[in-house]
């Protein structure tokens, strides 16, 4: 018999019965221990009241009163062939009391890796993203960046009249977080999936703007190239009650079916604690994973959009405050904040998982959510929590 040592018990016993053997079990309990049980299907109250216990049919479990002299018979029945499989003392259970969790205020040492890599535990993972294609749809990429020498980089511009080279800087920062180096010539390692194949699609101009058509063309390009992950640190603000785009939802759902997971920034329109604004377009589509931003102490970024409506949920969070990564101009790196920076952290972790488990599409989504570290914050702000490398 399993006898909890430190837990409070009631003096009653739970008896696990072989499935589909209720009648035999009733006879057996009487036979081995002289225990008369009623069934939850019995409708006669007196019969239940006069018995020594109850059988829960759906569960295949009996709850019985056993006197000290009946207990040896029960325990013997577990060891002998028959319908009684296990006996446990019934425990007393209480409502779970919430306790405050101290914020982790320890300063993070960034000499080897950024705090973001450490928060998602990428620095502890043996996965590298090798063999996985990650598309970053943004303002392009600084192809000649010294930290990316020797890397496989495929580019395409969907902005008429502009080459893929990133005159803005935002795209280069996002590529750095998702796929940048772990051992750059100077400064901390900042890339999550540091051996992934980079697909940098320019869907936002050097001025930082684009339109739905260019983004969809970029998504199509990424799917055609077999990218397992698309990172999109872009969007348009929405108002509460705004419906998501049926077309982007369809695109994302078709992408998932083809093994491509789209991850997008939730948006930076909140001004917490005073105002929480809804997840933007297109991250508010159910089939696009929406990412909020946390800081080094695990608190939510003041700007991070929240779940305001029945749809348009924040799905996960990742580091998005004081994020160090590559930049298009000297000295080649910069610190930025925003859900834009959180998104490529998730994309990088997704690439590590795609490599480690061979997961694609919705399985990848499930693994990201399943393993995310739960945070003591509202699910409407952080979804499943802080993503964690495999």
């Amino acid at each position: 018999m399993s006898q909890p040592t430190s837990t409070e018990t009631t003096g009653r016993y739970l008896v696990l019965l072989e499935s589909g053997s209720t009648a035999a079990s009733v006879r057996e309990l009487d036979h081995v221990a002289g225990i008369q049980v009623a069934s939850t299907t019995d409708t006669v109250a007196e019969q239940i009241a006069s018995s020594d216990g109850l059988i829960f049919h759906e569960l295949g479990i009996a709850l019985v009163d056993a006197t000290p002299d009946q207990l040896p018979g029960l325990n013997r029945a577990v060891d002998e062939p028959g319908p009684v499989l296990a006996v446990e003392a019934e425990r007393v259970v209480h409502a779970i009391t919430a306790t405050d969790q101290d914020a982790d205020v320890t300063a993070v040492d960034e000499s080897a890796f950024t705090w973001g890599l450490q928060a998602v535990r990428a620095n502890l993972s043996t996965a590298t993203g090798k063999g996985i294609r990650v598309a970053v749809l943004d303002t392009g990429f600084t192809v000649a960046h010294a930290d990316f020498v020797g890397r496989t980089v495929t580019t395409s511009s969907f902005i008429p009249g502009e080459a893929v080279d990133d005159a803005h800087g935002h795209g280069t920062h996002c590529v750095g977080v998702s796929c940048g180096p772990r051992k750059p010539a100077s400064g901390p390692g900042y890339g999550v999936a540091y051996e992934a194949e980079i697909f940098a699609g320019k869907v936002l101009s050097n001025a930082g703007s684009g339109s739905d058509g260019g983004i969809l063309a970029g998504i199509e390009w990424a799917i055609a190239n077999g990218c397992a992950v698309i990172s999109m640190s872009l969007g348009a603000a929405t108002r509460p009650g705004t419906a998501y785009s049926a077309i982007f939802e369809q695109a994302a759902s078709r992408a998932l079916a083809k093994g491509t997971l789209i991850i997008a920034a939730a948006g930076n329109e909140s001004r917490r604690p005073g105002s929480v604004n809804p997840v933007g377009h297109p991250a508010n589509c159910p089939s696009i994973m929406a990412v909020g931003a946390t800081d080094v102490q695990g608190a939510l970024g003041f700007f991070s959009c929240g779940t305001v409506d029945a749809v348009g949920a924040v799905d996960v969070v990742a580091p998005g405050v004081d994020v160090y990564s590559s930049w298009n101009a000297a000295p080649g790196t910069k610190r930025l904040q925003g859900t834009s920076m959180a998104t490529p952290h998730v994309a990088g972790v997704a690439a590590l998982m795609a490599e480690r488990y061979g997961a694609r599409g919705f399985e990848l989504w499930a693994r990201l959510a399943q393993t995310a570290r739960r945070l003591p914050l509202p699910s409407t702000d952080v979804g499943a929590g802080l993503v964690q490398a495999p």
Partner: protein
Amino acid sequence: MEKVVVSIADDRLDRLPEVVAALRAAGLVVDDVLEALGLVTGAVRAGGLAALAAVDGVLDVERQRGVRVLPPEGP
């Protein structure tokens, strides 16, 4: 002209060129046919969305939105 995105029903994706031809006939100036996504992007004269939505095999028609790099920028 308005920039639009048109989505095609799943059961018409194997006959995408026919639907695209019908969209052209209904006034769509096609930018891109995104086969993997089952979408067509392009432009239509103001007020021309309803004609596109009426094309057989069309699921949805939406005006394209402007999308931006997300502020705030910088630390």
